[in-house]
């Protein structure tokens, strides 16, 4: 646990390194995502909610984020015994979900298939350019506080301390990334991907969590520093081609492979990738585990996860504080299937009790 007064730690310089991954005997591996061939995937989300005392509603996130540089949704279809189902698009963030209703007098089942294309992304941050500007409305959305991501108080104070000596947006964005890498840790006990309660995280002085916590912290700090930023909620769909076991799906069953990342908007480059949480994941989980922050295994990904990420992951949406259509329930983010029985929300982190499964397959035509 760190003291909140000791947040600022000097960011260490790090360099790209070729390394030998312990899990791949004798193989030399790098972590260097670069835009290349597009890959096509099909993910299938299957809900099987037991016969219930009351009406059942379910909501399944669908691929909605579209960026010609690295992700393109292709289409969605579904089959099941629903009484009604429709695709709903959130007007604020553009998040898409399938909203299904069931009578509940028999087990409620629905299988949703989504196809999308993706590839590695990488920004050339040492070159100047000109990206399409954000509209005023988008800028406002991606600078504002959410219910769990305040941008004032200790968040603002911390952001100011991190960026005090910096003037350029790219330098500020990078400094916040390095600060999150240096000052947080991945906590194995955190349920799911965490909750993203940034204020509680900072005020507790215990900066442990998972991607929804650590990358939300990045986004909140960036927004507090005046940089438009957003969480991108999604799921890992394939192993890492760079050999990092911790940075990919372990099998075609991806029911518990949800992962959220972050993006920061820089006027020269547009939306730029940032995933400090995955650096901490490599530190904790990548064999042989408990890797030092300056180990080659970690520095290789740390160098790249600001500006790039690998195309083995589906981005659903960037929404926060989403009211589920047809319900009073609101979710802080939509990365898991949701369902309610007679108005009572099921525990989306309890996939076996819920119950749902998610599988992924790469489509090779």
């Amino acid at each position, binding site marked *: 646990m760190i003291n909140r007064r000791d947040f600022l730690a000097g960011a260490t310089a790090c360099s790209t390194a070729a390394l030998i991954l312990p899990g791949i005997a004798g193989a030399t591996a790098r972590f260097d995502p670069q835009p290349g061939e597009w890959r096509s995937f099909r993910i299938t989300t299957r809900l099987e909610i037991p016969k219930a005392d009351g009406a059942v509603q379910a909501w399944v996130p669908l691929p909605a984020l579209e960026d010609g540089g690295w992700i393109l949704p292709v289409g969605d279809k579904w089959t099941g015994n629903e009484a009604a189902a429709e695709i709903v698009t959130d007007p604020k963030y553009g998040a898409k979900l399938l909203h299904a209703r069931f009578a509940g007098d028999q087990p409620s089942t629905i299988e949703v298939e989504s196809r999308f294309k993706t590839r590695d992304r990488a920004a050339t941050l040492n070159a100047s350019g000109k990206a399409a500007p954000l509209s005023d409305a988008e800028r406002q959305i991606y600078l504002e506080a959410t*219910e769990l991501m*305040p941008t004032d*108080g200790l968040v603002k104070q911390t952001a100011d301390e991190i960026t005090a000596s910096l003037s350029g947006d790219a330098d500020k964005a990078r400094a916040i990334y390095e600060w999150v890498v240096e000052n947080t840790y991945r*906590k194995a*006990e*955190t*349920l799911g991907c*965490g*909750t993203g*309660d940034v*204020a*509680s995280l*900072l*005020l*507790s002085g*215990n900066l*442990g969590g998972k991607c929804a916590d650590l990358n939300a912290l990045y986004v909140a700090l960036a927004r507090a520093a005046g940089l438009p930023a957003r969480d991108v909620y999604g799921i890992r769909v394939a192993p890492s081609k760079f050999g990092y076991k911790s940075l990919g799906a372990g099998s075609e069953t991806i029911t518990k492979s949800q992962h959220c990342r972050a993006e920061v908007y820089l006027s020269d480059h547009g939306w730029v990738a940032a995933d400090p949480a995955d650096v901490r994941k490599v530190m904790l989980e990548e064999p042989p585990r408990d890797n030092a922050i300056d180990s080659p295994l970690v520095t290789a990904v740390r160098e790249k996860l600001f500006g790039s990420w690998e195309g083995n992951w589906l981005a659903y949406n960037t929404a926060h504080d989403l009211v589920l259509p047809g319900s*009073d*329930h*609101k979710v*802080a983010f939509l990365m898991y299937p949701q369902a309610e029985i007679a108005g*009572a*929300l*099921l*525990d*989306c*982190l*309890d996939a076996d*009790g819920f119950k749902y499964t998610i599988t992924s397959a790469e489509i090779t035509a």
Partner: protein
Amino acid sequence: MAAALLLVSGATAAFSAELARWTGEPKPPLHLESLYHGRVSLDDHKGRAVLVHFFATWCEPCVEEMASLERLAVRRQGDELSILAIDVGEVDARVRNFFKRNPASFPVLLDRDRAVIKAWQVKALPSSFILDSNLVPVLFVERDVDWDDPSVNSALDELIKTLPRDDRRDVDKREADENDKPT
């Protein structure tokens, strides 16, 4: 590390660095569904000292603090202290599972849509308010507290001593009336 809570009655009250004397506005009414106590209203506890505790099951300090809060509740049975724990923003099933493993003798309220935490302007978990007999906040802690700490218990004793006798009788009568209801 849990915060120590010190309450010294009177105008010269002094507190530990972690504890703030509440100087803000009174808090709005509070009505919430609970896990096992039906719908709970803060007004029903008027005349008693009330500890309103905001927490979540994912919050590590909250989990540790909950055990000491339960020990406090057991020690304080018969005292004029009500404890209301408010779970923030979680599905009922997750909260229910938590308290199956960690039973609590006090009501656990469910702020499912975070409406109460927003209305009470609570910024972080865990947070606790200690209210006087008129349900006006006296003290506020924006972190975990060791409810076994002797200074905490002295503070609660001091607060309970200040409770108006009439209010205490009203509460006693309400509780007696409640007990007389057919079951």
